[in-house]
């Protein structure tokens, strides 16, 4: 599982790229965030806010998903049969 940051701004053309606190996302598209993206985001905020804190309630740019690993993902990470 990972966060996905989606931008959908009706006032701007589709090819406009938005800088969402350092994460670039084209309008009307989304980007799956890596762990590095999340850590870089937190490091840019003196108050230690996460991408979920800032974009969890966004109107035009919002984050969905979770940074937690699901049971299946944990199993996969541990390797088959364990």
């Amino acid at each position, binding site marked *: 599982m990972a966060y996905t940051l989606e*931008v959908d*701004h*009706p*006032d*701007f*053309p589709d090819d*406009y*790229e*938005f*800088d*969402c*606190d350092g994460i670039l996302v084209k309008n009307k598209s989304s980007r799956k965030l890596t762990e590095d993206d999340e850590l870089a985001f937190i490091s840019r*905020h*003196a*108050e230690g*806010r996460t991408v979920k*804190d*800032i*974009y969890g*309630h*966004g*109107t*035009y*740019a*919002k984050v969905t998903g979770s940074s937690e690993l699901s049971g299946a993902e944990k199993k996969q990470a541990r390797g088959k049969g364990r």
Partner: protein
Amino acid sequence: MPAGLGGGGKVGFAFEAVMGTYVAPAVFVPVLSEDLQYMEEKYYSEQIRQQTIHSDVKPAPYHVEGPVEMEVDVNNLPYWLYASRHNITKTGAGPYTYKFTPGNQGSASTAASGAVARTASITIVRNGIVFGYVGCVVGSFEFSVTDEGILVVTMDVLGMGEAVQSAPSPTWIAPQLYGADASNVYLAASAVTPTFGAANVNFDGFTFRANYNAEPQNRIRSDRKASYISFGITEAEIESSLDFLDRTDYDNMVANATRAIKLEATQGGLDFATATHGVKLQGNRVSYDTYETNLEGMGDLIISDFTGRMIGIAGGDAYQIEVKSAVNIA
């Protein structure tokens, strides 16, 4: 929280669906500075009770006001001009051309949508702390060209109130600024639709301002915020300096003859009609209030400084601001 720097701040802007009701930012505006402040004159009781110091304090009505200074960027300029006292037309299918002409409204708009003046919520984050200003209008503005040739604007904002809000979700786009290769100034006879010829290459500085004499109105009710923002007389001016080469416009001032003056700023200085984005600041009927020239000193250029007042013209508008932009305001 450690100390913060201005550069870490952010300013967001959104139109309000209900005048004075906060809306989280729709666009984020790169500003050069802002000074939006809470304005209140508290009541200090002067009861006579064997003491000569105020004995109590009560809150008074308040409003918010202050300037927001920014480089002109057509990705956000139309939003600010919607929040002023303008009549608005929007044409095109991308890029869109917004034409703003002076309106006569007595107070801030209560409209929720459409090409009409609207109130705005302005969100400002200072050192991570959020201020949500509501019921905001642009009470006056001033465009100018800096010594470096950059077109900038200061919007003087008046708003009904302020309250803390949750941290906004910023979305920034690449800047589209107008530098020394962007602007041209034109002069013509005043007309509803002036016929401008070639650019006048003698201008040194250009200021285009309008003041709607906006004021907060506080009515008796159990809410200390302003009830609304009113507008007064529109005072619109163009101010500039240029090389003094002939008597034409000095004589125009003396003879009370009006002129049309325009500044166009487009990417690369392209003609406004063919450019994909740009700004046009145009006074259709400008009366020279002052037109001064002198011998400043042995080594000084002979320059004219003038202030022109933009006034009404039968069948047209005193001024028009056109903004060509990819932004599609619904």
